[in-house]
C-alpha cells in the first residue's frame, strides 16, 4: 500500500510530464508567434547582464531589467560615457526588442548625442573628430536597421532613419531618406512625411525622382490652402521647369509670388 501510493505519485508525475511537454511546446510557440512571449535572451546580452540580471530576466522580470539597464544608460549619457551608453542600450534593446522607444533612443544617443559631442570636442584633432562623428552616426544607422528587423516598417524608426540619412551624414543620402519617409508614411506616419520624402527626392535632380516629387507636391498643392507649405510653393515651379510641364498646368504666378504662410502641420509629439 505504502509503496503503491509512492509509485503512483511517481508514475503520475512522469505521465503528466510526458503529456504536458508537447502541449507546452505548442502553446509557447503559439504565444511567441503572436508576440505575447519573447524569445530567450541571446548569448551576447546574457554576458553583459551578468548572472543576476540574466536570472531576473528569465524570471519574468525582463521588462524591469530592461528598465534598469535603460536608466543606467541614461546616467551614462549624463556622464557622456558613450561606449557605456551604447553597450547598455544594446542590452536594453536585446531584452525588449519590440519596444520601439528603446531602439529610437539607442540610435539617437549614437547618431546625435555622441556624434555631436565628439565633433565639438576641441581636445581632439580635427581629423579624428570628424572620423568619430562619422562612426557614431553610422552606429546610429546600424541600430535602427537592426531595430527594423524586429519591428519591420515601424514608422517611428523609419522616420528616425530617414532623418539621419537626410541630416546627419557628411554626405547626405536623399534617395535613402526619401525611401524611409515614404515607407513611414505608408505605414501610418503623418502625411508630412510624404511631403518630406518629396523634398528629399527633389534634391536628387533626376528625371525619375523629379516626376515622383512633382506628383506628390502637386497633389498636396491641389488639396488647397492648408497643404501649400512654403517649401512646396518654392519647389513646385522649379520642378515644373525641370520637367517641362505645359504652362497651362503650372501653378499660377501670383500664388507663387505670394506664398501663404501655411500652418505647421508637422505632428508635435511631446519631446523629452
Amino acid at each position, binding site marked *: 500500500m505504502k509503496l503503491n501510493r509512492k509509485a503512483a505519485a511517481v508514475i503520475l508525475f512522469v505521465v503528466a510530464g510526458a503529456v504536458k511537454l508537447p502541449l507546452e511546446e505548442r*502553446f509557447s510557440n503559439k504565444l511567441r508567434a503572436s508576440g*505575447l512571449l*519573447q524569445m530567450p535572451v541571446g548569448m551576447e546580452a546574457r554576458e553583459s547582464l551578468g548572472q543576476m540580471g540574466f536570472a531576473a530576466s528569465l524570471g519574468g522580470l525582463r521588462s524591469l531589467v530592461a528598465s534598469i539597464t535603460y536608466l543606467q544608460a541614461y546616467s551614462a549619457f549624463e556622464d557622456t560615457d558613450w561606449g557605456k551608453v551604447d553597450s547598455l542600450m544594446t542590452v536594453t534593446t536585446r531584452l525588449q526588442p519590440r519596444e520601439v522607444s528603446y531602439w529610437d533612443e539607442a540610435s539617437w544617443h549614437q547618431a546625435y548625442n555622441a556624434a555631436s559631442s565628439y565633433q565639438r570636442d576641441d581636445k581632439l584633432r580635427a581629423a579624428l573628430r570628424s572620423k568619430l562623428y562619422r562612426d557614431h552616426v553610422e552606429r546610429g544607422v546600424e541600430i535602427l536597421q537592426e531595430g527594423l528587423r524586429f519591428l519591420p516598417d515601424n514608422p517611428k524608426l523609419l522616420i528616425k532613419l530617414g532623418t539621419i540619412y537626410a541630416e546627419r551624414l557628411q554626405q547626405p543620402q536623399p534617395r535613402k531618406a526619401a525611401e524611409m519617409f515614404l515607407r513611414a508614411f505608408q505605414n501610418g506616419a503623418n502625411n508630412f512625411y510624404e511631403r518630406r520624402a518629396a523634398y528629399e527626392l527633389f534634391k536628387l535632380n533626376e528625371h525619375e525622382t523629379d516626376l515622383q516629387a512633382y506628383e506628390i507636391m502637386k497633389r498636396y498643392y491641389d488639396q488647397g490652402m492648408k497643404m501649400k507649405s512654403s517649401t512646396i510653393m518654392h519647389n513646385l515651379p522649379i520642378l515644373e521647369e525641370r520637367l517641362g510641364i505645359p504652362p497651362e498646368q503650372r501653378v499660377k504666378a501670383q500664388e507663387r509670388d505670394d506664398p501663404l504662410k501655411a500652418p505647421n502641420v508637422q505632428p508635435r509629439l511631446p519631446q523629452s
Partner: protein
Amino acid sequence: MSSTLKSSPRKYRAFSPARVWALATNTVTQLVRMKILFLLLLFVVIVVAAAFAFPTRSPEQQLKLLKDVVFGALQVFSIVMAISATALLLPRDVEDRTLYTILSKPVPRHEYLVGKLLGVLLLIGGGLLFMDVFFSGVLWLKQTMITAANIEALKSEQSDTPENIAAVRALIAHQGLTWNLHAGVWCVFLKAAVVASLALLMSCIATSTLFTILVSFCFTIAGQGQGLLRSFVFKSLPVTWKKICSFVLALLLPDLGLFDQVQAVIEGNSIPLATLAETTGFAAAYVVLYAGVAHLIFSEKEL
C-alpha cells in the same frame, strides 16, 4: 450510563466544503496575523516611489517604468508569498504538532491540503486585488497628470490642434491604464498559484520549512527556464547526459515562462480572451497535478 450523551452521531461526509472553508479561512487569518500583509505596505511605497521619484523622461518611458517596477514588485511579492506562506504552513503544523489535533478530527487529509492551498490562494488573490486597485489608481493619476502637462506644452507652443491633442492622448492612453493590465495581474496570480501548489508538494516531501523554501525557489527559477530546457531537448542532438537531465527536469517542472505574457502587457499588447483562457487552463492543470501528487504523498505520511 450514556444517558447524558447524544446518541446520534453527526453524519460524516467524504468531502465537506464547510470544513475546507474553515481550514482556508483559518490559514488566511494565520497569515494575516503573521503580518505577511506588511508586504502590501512595502508595495505601496514602491509604487509611489516609482510613480513620482524617477527623473522625468518621455511620457511613454515614465509610464513604462512605472509599469515595469509595479509588475516586477507584483511578481516578486506573489512568488515570495506563494512559497513562504505555503512553506510556513504545512511543515510548521507538523513541527508544532498542530496537525495532530486537526487530523484527529474527522478531517480527511486531502481536505486539509485543499484547505491550506485555498487559503494561500485566497491570500495571494486578495493581495493582488488590492495591489491592482491601488496601482490602477496611481497609474491613472500619473497618466492624467502627464496628459495634462503635454497638452499644456502644446498650448504654449500654440500647436494645440485637436489632431495633435488626440495624438498625445492616444499615445499616452496606450501606455496607460487599460484592461490588459488586469489580464497581466491575472497571469501573475496564475503563476503564483502554480508556484504555491509546487511548494505544497515540496512541503509534503520535506518537513522542514527552510528546505521547502530553498527547494521551491530553485524549482521556481528552473521552471522559468523550462522553455530553454525543453527546446534543448527537442533539438535533434545526440542523446547525452545533459540531454537526459534536461529531459527529466522539463518533465518535472512547470513551464512558468508561459505566464510571462505579462511582459507583452507592459509593452502595451493585449492578450486575447481565448489565450487568457488557455493560460488559465494550463495553470489549473498544473495546480491539480501538483496538489494530486502532494495528496498521494501526504496521505501516506507518518506523522
